[in-house]
């Protein structure tokens, strides 16, 4: 076996998700090569070359890759594949990887496997369906396997935003109230995410959305503040180690997955919690 991992980066820095994809590639067995395509991105290639277990770094530095468009990177991946005949091509399951990998797959006449959370063997992969409400084990019959990797399911890389995530939904009445959360998150060294309702209401930008169609996170501690817990939403966070829910509605579904539930108005509870937690 030999796996090509398509690196995601900003031309200056490697995106941490790539490191999770590299870990997944190791589970296949065999050599792992990494393709860095971009514009003046040699620094990234150097960074990748230092990652344990990457036996080959392929650097494609060209103006044509500005914007990292799948239309420009697909022909490069195809040419690379023709030259090296990899058995597997992996990318992170991000907007970049999800945009690119299926395009490459169709050109190779391969049925890709999206957003895997496990690898059973070189041709058998585990993934979630129905917003995480079922787990599917699927065996690929294609000669080349094209796969996107869910970052939270494989180790490596500093997790986005540290060890805890604080999340909030429509329970916070307007964008300014998010300050309540940021104060708490600051104390905990946590990142802040949001529900679809909060994003739709324009309180916070779209890339803060956590859920079936947004980001998937799995921090050590997840504090759901004013989150009701729709299934689409739980899909994005239920693999967190410890879940805390603060909601004034005792019937909120979030309490069904929370390790510690506090039935209280968040406007009272959150400042109190910020007060009680000492500075680091």
């Amino acid at each position: 076996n030999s796996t090509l991992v398509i690196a995601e980066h900003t031309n200056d820095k490697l995106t941490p998700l790539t490191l999770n994809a590299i870990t997944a590639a190791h589970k296949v067995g065999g050599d792992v090569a990494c393709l860095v395509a971009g514009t003046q991105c040699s620094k990234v290639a150097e960074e990748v070359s230092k990652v344990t277990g990457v036996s080959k770094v392929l650097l494609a530095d060209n103006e044509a890759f500005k914007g990292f468009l799948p239309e420009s990177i697909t022909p490069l991946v195809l040419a690379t594949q023709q030259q090296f005949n990899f058995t597997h091509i992996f990318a992170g399951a991000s907007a970049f990887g999800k945009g690119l990998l299926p395009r490459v797959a169709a050109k190779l006449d391969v049925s890709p496997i999206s957003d895997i959370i496990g690898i059973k063997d070189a041709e058998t992969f585990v993934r979630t369906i129905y917003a995480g409400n079922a787990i599917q084990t699927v065996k690929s019959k294609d000669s080349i396997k094209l796969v996107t990797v869910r970052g939270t399911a494989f180790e490596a890389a500093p997790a986005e935003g540290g060890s805890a995530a604080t999340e909030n939904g429509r329970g916070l009445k307007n964008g300014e109230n998010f300050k309540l959360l940021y104060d708490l998150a600051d104390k905990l060294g946590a990142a802040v995410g949001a529900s679809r309702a909060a994003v739709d209401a324009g309180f916070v930008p779209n890339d803060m959305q956590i859920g079936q169609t947004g980001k998937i996170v799995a921090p050590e501690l997840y504090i759901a503040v004013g989150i009701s817990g729709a299934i689409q939403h739980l899909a994005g966070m239920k693999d967190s180690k410890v879940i805390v829910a603060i909601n004034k509605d005792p019937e909120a579904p979030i309490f069904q997955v929370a390790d510690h539930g506090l039935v209280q108005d968040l406007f009272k509870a959150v400042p109190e919690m910020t007060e009680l937690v000492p500075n680091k």
Partner: protein
Amino acid sequence: MTGNCNKFNTKMSGLRVLVGCKRVIDYAVKIRVKPDKSGVVTDGVKHSMNPFDEIAIEEAVRMKEKKIASEVIALSCGPTQCQETLRTALAMGADRAIHVKVEGKDYEGLQPLHVSKILSKVAQDEKADIVLVGKQAIDDDSNQTGQMTAALLDWPQATFASKIEKNNGNLTVVREIDGGLETIKVNIPAVLTTDLRLNEPRYATLPNIMKAKKKPLATKTASDLGVDLTPRQEVLSVEDPPVRQAGQKVESVEELVKKLQDAGLVPS
């Protein structure tokens, strides 16, 4: 990137939009895994149009209302019940529908690659200018069909669209990506996939539901279109996810903070 401008200037008044509409288990239904682990229970379960595809239909109909599009064609692949999904699309404002009948074992093994082949063939046959599909289906959560259709047609792709505008011969598309929003220019013909915030789909009104019954609905098979449906993957099992046990309710913020401190999760 260029060369087609003249050709499209002549037909600027009317783009033909092909929209993929997948029939899926309704988003509000609680999914049940079959005891033999072969899949999820679908018999007697409410089905609806994939919510992202509803957004795609809505966008196509709005393009028509803005006179950007001249015709909206809805397509669905699957068993006879897909015709109900297509009638919904027609009631929302699509002009006509194509049902590509796929049943039994073929339907069980139907994957986004097959659907992309069907969509791209129909896009060519119907001389579509835009193919519009949801960014993902809420059943398999694959997020592949639009990208693969674009590849097969060799058209540009604009995935995860939250805003689509037409300027002269091209489209300006705002995309929802990690890290925020990205604005790209896309030449036509193109494949677009819809994100949640592109629009709010309308409800079909009763008069429009009645009218939809009279709109044309053509039926084809994959073999009519020359598409081979041999499965490329075998589903070995479908299982329940590990159950997360609900924990304890705490009475106060003090108690909560104490518990988290004892577990070493917050500073003490």
